[in-house]
């Protein structure tokens, strides 16, 4: 009985809420994770060619970096709204908006990572007869992985937070619960969904860190400045 009271009293923390609406929370979380994962995956697929294009010279780098930075300045609500005529009320709208945001961070980090590849490593690979494609996949990208992962982690954390705004078109994952909680003045729902959102961001960050460490064992052997701090300076969208 005492547990039911917290729903009646509209307390911030309410175990009964989590118990009785568990399914709702799980569904919203799954939608949240789904939107985030798809956005980051598409974001990476778009960012890589853009970074390679930007690397070809100043004529390409200027427009690519300028455009992605400008996109980042557009407030999220406006970004989703501008996409409304193209996509209608759909998950594709939210994913597209999030992809456009992630590009800023991802393109810059991939570019920074590629530019930090030591010229000797490239020379050595060329000397061994590596063509441009093999050089990219087997030498440059692996060496750029720490910077790339720093970017993926930042973009993922930002995307988890921004997904909530998708609630404006009813595809906001946990943001939907936050908005419906606001409309019905349901404090436990708003707080629980908000906390889950932050937990989701932290979990994703730690998971990606673990993957990065597994993929780049050499960064822990050599004693040098962690690439994380170097990349973090470059990527902060201005």
């Amino acid at each position, binding site marked *: 009985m005492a547990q039911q009271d917290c729903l009646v009293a509209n307390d911030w923390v309410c175990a009964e809420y989590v118990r009785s609406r568990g399914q709702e929370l799980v569904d919203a979380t799954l939608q949240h994770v789904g939107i985030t994962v798809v956005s980051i995956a598409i974001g990476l697929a778009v960012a890589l060619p853009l970074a390679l294009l930007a690397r070809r010279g100043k004529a390409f780098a200027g427009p690519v970096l300028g455009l992605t930075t*400008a996109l*980042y*300045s*557009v*407030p*999220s*609500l*406006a*970004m989703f*709204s*501008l996409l*409304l*005529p193209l996509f209608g009320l759909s998950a594709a709208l939210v994913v597209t908006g999030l992809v456009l945001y992630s590009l800023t961070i991802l393109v810059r980090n991939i570019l920074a990572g590629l530019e930090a590849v030591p010229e000797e490593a490239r020379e050595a690979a060329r000397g061994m007869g590596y063509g441009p494609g093999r050089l990219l996949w087997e030498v440059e990208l692996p060496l750029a992985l720490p910077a790339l992962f720093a970017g993926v982690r*930042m973009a993922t*954390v*930002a995307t*988890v*937070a*921004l997904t*909530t*705004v998708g*609630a*404006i*078109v009813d595809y906001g994952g946990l*943001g939907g619960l*936050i*908005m419906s*909680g*606001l409309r019905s*003045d349901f*404090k436990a729902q*708003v*707080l629980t*969904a*908000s906390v889950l*959102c*932050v937990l989701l*961001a*932290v979990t994703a*960050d730690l998971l990606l860190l673990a993957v990065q460490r597994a993929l780049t064992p050499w960064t822990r052997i050599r004693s040098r400045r962690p690439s994380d701090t170097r990349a973090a*300076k470059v990527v*902060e*969208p*201005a």
Partner: protein
Amino acid sequence: MNALPDAFVWLTTATNWQGEKGVWHRLGEHLYFSGTCLAVACLLALPLALWLGHMGKGGALAVNISNIGRAVPTLAVLVLLSLTPLSKYGDLPTLIALVLFAVPPLLTNAYVGMREVDRSVVEAARGMGMSGRQLFLRVELPLAYPLIMTGLRSAAVQVVATATLAAMAGEGGLGRIITAGFNLQDTPQVVAGAVLVAALALLVEGVLVALGRILDPMRGRALPG
């Protein structure tokens, strides 16, 4: 695909600009929220960051605070604050949220800017007999200036974006035109509102870039190295 012409019609209709729900009033609210909160955030964050940077303390705090700022959803904070008793004081919850989200970029960039001043330059200044105060005002501050301005620009963009989201928590500002458009299922109004918000954000960013160049204390001087 008539959305853009229809949005243009919405924007060029005089009645949409007048009155309490009109563009001018919403723009005024937006600028009032954003300007006040940016000023308060600067007063809070910059002295602290510059002092920490000068003393070389609190680095972990300054860097982590910006990571935390990125992980916490703006919308969640706006809604949470609007459900607290603070909402009795009108716009106060929104103003607090705006300040909270403007502080991290200001703090982190100003701190990093101070710490990245070339140590050999600082040593040379000390060797010339500069006091801590002279060192701060004549060496560290001018050299940290570009990053301080980057922080200000990020904070301004963040504040304009957060002030837009405030509409989803029931507050005023230009975002209200967008949310009202969604409620009315009026796509032209949604797009028109979004165009206004995006234009404002890009304008603010552009003005701050220009201002940063004009005020640069190192302007016209040869860069070392």
